[in-house]
């Protein structure tokens, strides 16, 4: 009976240890391992390495407190959120924003005044809407500052309903 004329390729053994070979190949390696002490040792060395590595990691990370880490992360998130809010506040209320915003507001007020005057003074519709009936106004519709000329009589009166000013005069050469 021929025994162990060959050894499993180390790379194949590595794949076998990781369960990354096809089932028929795995079966062949398994059979070989039962018969070949050298390959079995190589296989055990892989397992020993694996357990040693995992022990090494767990030993060195055992001092790390996961809860503390979790708290730190949450603290940082809260802090970042606060900073973000603070930044937004600072940006909104900084001179860089406040001054241009104020200027913009002033410009808008000016524009509003322009448009108000333009719309309400130069078009028929709004003027009519804004026109206050003179009757509702106690002041006369017109104040006569001065008059002069070749006149015989000058009278200043008011209409009975809307109290519009009437300026009545007679030319000098006219018969009154």
């Amino acid at each position, binding site marked *: 009976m021929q025994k162990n004329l060959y050894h499993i390729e*180390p*790379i194949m053994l*590595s*794949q076998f240890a*990781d*369960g*990354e070979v096809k089932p028929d190949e795995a079966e062949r390696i398994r059979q070989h391992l039962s018969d070949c002490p050298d390959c079995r040792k190589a296989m055990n*060395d*892989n397992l*020993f*390495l*694996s357990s*040693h*590595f*995992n022990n*090494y*990691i*767990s*030993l*060195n*990370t*055992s*001092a*790390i407190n*996961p809860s503390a*880490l*979790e708290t*730190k*992360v*949450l603290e*940082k*998130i809260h802090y*970042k959120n606060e900073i973000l809010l603070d930044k937004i506040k600072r940006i909104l209320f900084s001179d860089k924003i406040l001054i241009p915003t104020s200027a913009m507001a002033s410009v808008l007020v000016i524009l509003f005044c322009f448009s108000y005057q333009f719309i309400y003074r130069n078009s028929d519709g709004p003027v009519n809407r804004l026109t206050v009936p003179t009757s509702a106004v106690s002041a006369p519709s017109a104040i006569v500052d001065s008059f002069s000329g070749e006149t015989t009589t000058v009278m200043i009166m008011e209409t009975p309903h809307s109290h519009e000013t009437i300026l009545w005069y007679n030319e000098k050469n006219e018969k009154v």
Partner: protein
Amino acid sequence: MSKKVKAKKHAEHLLIERLKQGDEDAFVSLMRQYRAALINIAYGITSDSEESQDIVQEVFLKVYSSIHSFNEKSSIRTWLYRITVNQSLNWIRTWKRRLKWQHQSLTQETSGDGINQPELGSEKYSPSDLFEEKELTWRFEKELKALPKKTRAVFVLRENQGLSYDEIARVLNIKRGTVCSRLYHARLKLKKALLKGDR
């Protein structure tokens, strides 16, 4: 797809939805589920527990801020592992961190082998056993640190997290064959370090 896998996927999808809505409880739940694994991966690559903590913190902060960009093409585990590996590989040590690390090394040196070592003269360990154990660990650590970090990443994902070659390939965005050869070389070197003694 089995019912169990379907249910797991659905639960994960719900968790992601909650995370995207900014649910802090969901985030805490995610941290509790993965923090240990991520610490192990980070330590497996950096061999520095303090750096590993910082890395994992950064990973979770990154996840919190970029969960909206997670498109669920891969599982959340793959995504988290990928971020952790990248963060560990790209970890830039500041001068402060270097000094801190050096300081800690010296402290460890002067205070013996640390709190995890059994007492001298106890039944389990004789002084010679302790010496051998210490030397073995020293050799192993030296060899591990000498490995390329990308190889260490493959090794830790396989040996510590039990990921398949395909999963490792997805996390690291490399070919399956590359995973296989990196694992083989890592084992070869580390086994040499472990077996230099009598074992």
